[in-house]
């Protein structure tokens, strides 16, 4: 790209950014639900960032004298079977849960996004191979495949991230492929090629940035699913191990006490999980309205 073109392009993108921000403010103002989801999202991020420093109790410290106490002034969300403070554990767990979700979404964006863009852009064999891989993954019930992957690769948090990324691969690959397939005949792609850019450079420098908005929406929409998937895996005993504070495993620990009436152990982490997923789903819908209003339902 020549230097002469740069100022104009930057100006256009600033204008674009400004327009998006103004549009976003409009959407947030019009759509109270999205604004609410955004506030919730900030709250979760805040809990993940500063949670461990502000919680009233050590999330791992057990106090058998205070075990299984219902919510009170000292323990707002009660204590679990080992006397650990449920509220502190729920807040501290936000970081791990969010990190698993963000890591798996980032990973699947790299794998699925790139594979999909390449498939749509190059077509032919690349397209067939990527399509075949996506079809094979889609032939499994996704959670079951994730179980199998974690069980085979070893029971560890990074394998939960990997498994969640793999089961989301087809979604990303398909969206990226469809978008890239349209863009490969676009005028700016031909122009870039005429300027002597290599295919890889056109793919990464010209096509990929143009499908980013759609991919960001996709990431936001699948974030909730990633959290649910990871929590589900740790609920059945995969990945995160006790005594680590994580929402799925905390619900699993509280499950046995639900039948005897100690509801608070499972309820609060379960509610946190629900709120997080709900927030990401709403946010994803809101983002999609900003980026791609036609797909609004």
């Amino acid at each position, binding site marked *: 790209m020549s230097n002469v073109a740069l100022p104009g392009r930057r100006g256009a993108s600033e204008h674009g950014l400004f327009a998006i921000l103004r549009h976003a403010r409009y959407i947030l103002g019009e759509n109270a639900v999205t604004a609410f989801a955004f506030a919730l999202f900030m709250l979760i991020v805040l809990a993940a960032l500063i949670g461990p420093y502000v919680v009233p109790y050590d999330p791992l410290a057990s106090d058998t004298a205070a075990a299984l106490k219902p919510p009170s002034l000292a323990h707002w969300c009660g204590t679990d079977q080992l006397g650990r403070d449920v509220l502190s554990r729920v807040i501290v767990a936000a970081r791990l849960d969010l990190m698993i979700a963000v890591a798996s979404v980032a990973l699947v964006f790299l794998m699925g996004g790139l594979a999909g863009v390449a498939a749509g852009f190059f077509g032919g064999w690349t397209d067939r191979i990527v399509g*075949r891989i996506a*079809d*094979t993954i889609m*032939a*499994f*019930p*996704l*959670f*079951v*495949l*994730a*179980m*199998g*992957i974690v*069980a*085979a*690769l*070893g029971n560890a948090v990074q394998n939960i991230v990997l498994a969640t990324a793999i089961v989301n691969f087809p979604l990303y690959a398909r969206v990226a492929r469809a978008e890239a397939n349209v863009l490969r005949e676009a005028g700016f792609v031909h122009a870039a090629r005429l300027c002597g850019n290599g295919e890889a450079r056109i793919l990464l420098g010209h096509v990929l940035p143009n499908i980013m908005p759609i991919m960001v929406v996709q990431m936001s929409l699948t974030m*909730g699913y990633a959290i*649910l998937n990871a*929590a*589900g895996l740790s*609920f*059945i*005993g*995969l990945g995160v191990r006790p005594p680590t504070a994580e929402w*799925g495993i905390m*619900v*699993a620990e*509280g*499950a046995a006490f*639900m*039948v*005897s*009436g100690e*509801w608070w152990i*499972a*309820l609060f982490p*379960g509610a946190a*999980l*629900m709120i997080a*997923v*709900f927030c990401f*789903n*709403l946010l994803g*819908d809101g983002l999609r309205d900003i980026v791609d209003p036609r797909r609004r*339902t």
Partner: protein
Amino acid sequence: MLSLIVKRVAAAVPSLIGVVIVTFLLTRALPGDPAAYFAGPAATAEAIEQVRVKLGLDQPLYVQFVRYVGDLARGDLGNSLTTGQPVGQELRSRLPASAELTLLGLLVSVAIAVPLGILAATRPNSLVDHACRAISTAGVSLPVFFTGLVLIYVFYYLLGWAPAPLGRLDVFFSPPAQVTGFYLIDSTLDGNGEVFLASLKQLILPALTLGIFSLAPIARMTRASMLAALASDFVRTARASGLSPFTVVVTYAFRNAMLPVITTLGMVFSFLLGANVLVEKVFAWPGIGSFAVEALIASDFAPLQGFVLTMAIMYVALNLAIDILYGVIDPRVRIEA
């Protein structure tokens, strides 16, 4: 019609081959030495070597794969480490429990979601419409194991309406004579009303849990495709011809709106089969999901592999059935084939 079925079956074959390859690769991806793994923790070096030869792990990968496919063709899924029982037999005996639960869950969700979606589409922006959107967004956000626990707390602990969440039948009853393996059907065949009621009571909460989880995509799709159908020319013509609103909505619009809904069922089944595992754990349901979870805890890989394979094959078969059903409902698909 026949050519359509043949074509669809042929299209399902690559999926099936992919599934078999992936489940094969999963075993080979086991960390460490699979032979040491299958021989168990207390095995000596000699025993490990014996297992290696017995499992054919000393052979090259493609020979192992051929052997694996051969075993599969004979229905041999290996033996469980912990119980020593053949995995295939165990899965077969537990499959009806899972199938009964999953199908009832689907029935519950269709029974709620389809009318809800139709109502929402016929009255856009009304209270029903907003309720439909709220329920479907909340439904996908609820972790399925959490919904199950809340239902147990409310209906078992607080209200005492539901029986203890411990399996398919209260211990006081003996299961009906096995015909289909579905307790509801078998007890009806026996004419045993008590057992029917007892097993229905056990089924309601887990089926409701699955239903709540899976109703969101069905309700959304029903609403969207009903909106499109109601806006079409043929519905306007039907209305103008003076047909009753019920006939217009159900006979004209809904029959045409059904197709996308049936397509979504494929995705719904993917969710349901996965959620099934979690629900079975919560309700101590003796199905293949809890079998897999037990195997997971014991690091017993053969049952898990058998489970993943069974689930995947069922899912491919379900998608095939949906495809064929699609052809039955929509004549255009048949003509294209």
